[in-house]
């Protein structure tokens, strides 16, 4: 498990601390925390979606590629979204339904990168009695380079 000792897997535990739809302010930054990406967490993520390309596992092979070393799959931001946010982040509210996401990729994340996130709700709306929030996110490495940026559309439980 990715840094399990520090991660609360019971999403009910801090549910009362998380913002409901009414409390979310579009434009207000979300609290975020730096996260050191490891080779092991990349490998676990790869296993969960069947990624088996050697550029994620084989250092000798990876050195021969344009990237010059091991990288993480582009979709590693799926992990980073939770690893870079604290337990009271509203993305963890039980019943949050993901309706869709769009992501742009600049440079790959790599093992031992210290990843930071700048994130906010960008918009909220009501459609067919459902409470929507659009979230806006940019991940950076320790050099300040953009790894990827993306938006997601979630349906809020309350």
């Amino acid at each position, binding site marked *: 498990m990715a840094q*399990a000792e520090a991660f609360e897997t019971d999403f009910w535990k801090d549910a009362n601390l998380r913002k409901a739809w009414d409390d979310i302010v579009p434009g207000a930054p979300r609290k975020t925390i730096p996260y050191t990406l490891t080779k092991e967490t990349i490998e676990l993520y790869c296993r969960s979606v069947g990624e088996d390309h050697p550029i994620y596992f084989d250092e000798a092979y990876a050195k021969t590629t344009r990237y010059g070393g091991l990288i993480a799959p*582009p979709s590693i931001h799926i*992990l980073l979204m*939770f690893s870079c946010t604290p337990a009271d982040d509203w993305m*963890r509210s039980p*019943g*949050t339904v993901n*309706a*869709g996401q*769009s992501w742009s990729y600049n440079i790959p994340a790599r093992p031992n990168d210290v990843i930071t996130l700048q994130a906010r709700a960008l918009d909220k709306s009501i459609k067919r009695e459902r409470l929507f929030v659009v979230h806006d996110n940019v991940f950076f490495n320790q050099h300040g380079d953009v790894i990827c940026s993306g938006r997601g559309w979630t349906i809020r439980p309350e």
Partner: protein
Amino acid sequence: MTTSFENLNAGDSIDGPKFAVSRESIRLFCDASLDYNPLHLDDDYMKGNFGKTNFGGIIMHGMNNFGLISRMITDWAYPAGAIHRRLETRWVKPVKPGDTIQPTGVIKSKQVTKNSRWVLIDVMVRNQTGEKVATGEAMVEFPH
């Protein structure tokens, strides 16, 4: 034939690998993504209604679809020296344990910009009965 920007045409298809969804695969995705939303874990919770929707049991993470599509795109792009630059997806139907899903792509168009060359790809994921569970589009760069 090796994939290259020049020999790609609108309508060309890309097939991703089939993926068998199980309670174990969903749990593994929880551990790998740190997304422990009870939608993916808690059978009792999933007996309830979500507005007008009742899923009838735990469902796979929508972002598991996203990861499978992204895997298909990179596995196609890397051998061609191309770079996966963008992916947009929408979930249209829940995926449940016992389903088998498969991502596919169809080349939509090509475009040359000031500094590079781009391929736009319509992507989708279907389940074992052919129903679309996710749709979207991807963008791949073929650098000069």
